């Protein structure tokens, strides 16, 4: 994240780059490199912060309420009875534990789909960045052009095609389309262009390392922050996917969490259906937590990966 340091004569450092420029003025005052903190600006940005966090607070608070408590109490404060543990138990136990099944399905789609998408994007991005091969321009034009094609516009034709091949209502119908992430390929291409020096590749080749060995021993470690970034974004895309499984799957045994939660919610609207809003809310919280945890734990890696990715734009 550090900006290139300067060789210019000592002038006051620019705004917004604390620490990246040698601090020559050590006055206690506010140099432009250490601008005065603004309470007003913090409060204004705080409004957007509230907007972002209040719904999540609502979700956490609501997950502690019973179905009755949801209707009776104020949305942003706890009701008398703290039912979070009961709700969690009931969520996992409802309908013979189908929630566990959906959770495991989602994990499978993520491991195979997002893992595979990341692998293909890393290999492809590296090839685009570091190799000259015939047809490279064509590959590039087609992939970039296809990014502009709305993914969901393709979904119905993909369903029809998969349907004639007998792939619908199987996990493959969800996994195979998840394997392609044009955004991941783009990010990896930009990242590999910068992170892998040509001299290093030349050196490895002169030392007699084959392409595969060079890739695993020299290139892969250098790409690590980019890989974490791509992996995180493909994981989010797969974990949160709704439209694709919606059209591809009929059998609830193959549902991911998103489809399952929606089916519980829709249950209340059907005749004679039992409303289980407290389970929908608790299940939603359980669905959200792993991704938020991943983003928080891996912050350093994916943010540096994204910053490098934006250089070329």
């Amino acid at each position: 994240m550090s900006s290139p340091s300067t060789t210019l004569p000592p002038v006051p450092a620019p705004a917004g780059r604390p620490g990246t420029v040698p601090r020559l003025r050590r006055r206690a005052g506010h140099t432009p490199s250490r601008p005065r903190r603004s309470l007003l600006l913090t409060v204004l940005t705080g409004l957007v912060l509230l907007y972002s966090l209040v719904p999540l607070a609502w979700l956490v608070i609501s997950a502690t309420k019973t179905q009755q408590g949801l209707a009776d109490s104020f949305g942003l404060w706890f009701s008398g009875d703290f039912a979070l543990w009961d709700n969690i138990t009931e969520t996992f136990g409802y309908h013979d534990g189908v929630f566990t099944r959906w959770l495991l399905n989602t994990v499978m789609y993520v491991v195979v789909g997002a893992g595979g998408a990341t692998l293909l994007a890393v290999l492809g991005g590296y090839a685009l960045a570091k190799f000259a091969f015939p047809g490279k321009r064509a590959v590039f034009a087609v992939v970039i052009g296809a990014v502009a094609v709305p993914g969901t516009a393709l979904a119905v034709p993909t369903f029809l095609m998969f349907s004639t091949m007998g792939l619908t209502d199987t996990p493959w119908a969800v996994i195979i389309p998840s394997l392609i992430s044009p955004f991941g390929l783009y990010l990896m291409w930009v990242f590999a262009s910068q992170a892998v020096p040509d001299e290093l590749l030349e050196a490895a080749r002169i030392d007699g390392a084959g392409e595969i060995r060079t890739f695993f021993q020299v290139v892969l470690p250098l790409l690590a922050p980019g890989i974490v970034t791509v992996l995180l974004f493909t994981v989010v895309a797969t974990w949160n996917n709704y439209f694709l499984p919606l059209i591809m799957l009929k059998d609830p045994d193959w549902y991911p969490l998103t489809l399952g939660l929606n089916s519980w919610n829709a249950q209340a609207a059907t005749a004679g259906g039992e409303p289980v809003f407290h389970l929908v809310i608790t299940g939603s919280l359980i669905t959200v937590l792993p991704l938020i945890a991943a983003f928080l734990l891996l912050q350093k890696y994916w943010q540096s990966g994204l910053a490098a990715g934006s250089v070329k734009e």
Partner: protein
Amino acid sequence: MTTLETVAGADRRPDRPPARRDRRSWAGWGFIGPFVLVFAFVFLAPIVYSVHLSLFRDQLIGGTTFVGLDNYQQALQDEQFWSSLSRVSLFLLIQVPIMLGIALLVALALDSGRLYGRDFFRISIFLPYAVPAVVATLMWGFMYGTRFGLVSDVNDALGVSLPDPLSPGLVLASIGNIVTWEFVGYNMLIFYSALRVIPNSLYEAAEMDGAGQIRVITAIKLPAIRGALVIATIFSIIGSFQLFNEPSILQKLAPNAITTSYTPNFYTYSLSFSGQQHNYSATVAIVMGLITMVIAYVVQLRGMRKES
């Protein structure tokens, strides 16, 4: 893959015979090949297949027959299609500027170094991106609701009656709010990452010229992140034209306000899965894809032209 292993040996000679280039080419294909194969299967094949489908029609009598461009003609005269298209266009014209504007302001505020607790702001505002659209819509749907929603809480507490966010007049704005909530942080992060890599020397030059904060923003920061702004705009346009998840999930809460042809994508979905009109559905999807590509292309041209 063993051919790849032998490539390095040829590199040792400095005179680089032409054969080396060819073998290196194969090495490149070895890495990109798997991506291209799967890409052809899940992107190119469905496009070709849907073009094929769009040229046929399922008749009650006579089975599937070739009808040329009849389906396209029908789509261009389809009122349901046009009203769904104008609905997402209206959505796009209002929601996207608001969302990107807020994202840009927050990114500039973070980048100015004037905030207390900058890192906390950055990660917290980004978090909604990690929430699935299904969960986001269910959450906001509950909060909008009159049964145990925040709107009804406010009504009870203050003795007022706020308009129902799920009424036909307001539901589009309510969807806009959900989409804005989901993607403000994501766009903010794209802009912020682009701002962080602006070279210091530009700020130093501006400093010596005596430029103020506003001038630095308009003369340095905004031009420097133009690429990121254009890309975020294009992604947002594509996203608006594809709108499906939020309206389809909210439909259960607002069945009177949201029809099955509420957005173009919802329309193609309904045609295919409720109406069994696969051929016509493919046609509408193609027309919509073409419109999206043209608009994305025009925006890109305009955005890049100003750069020179």
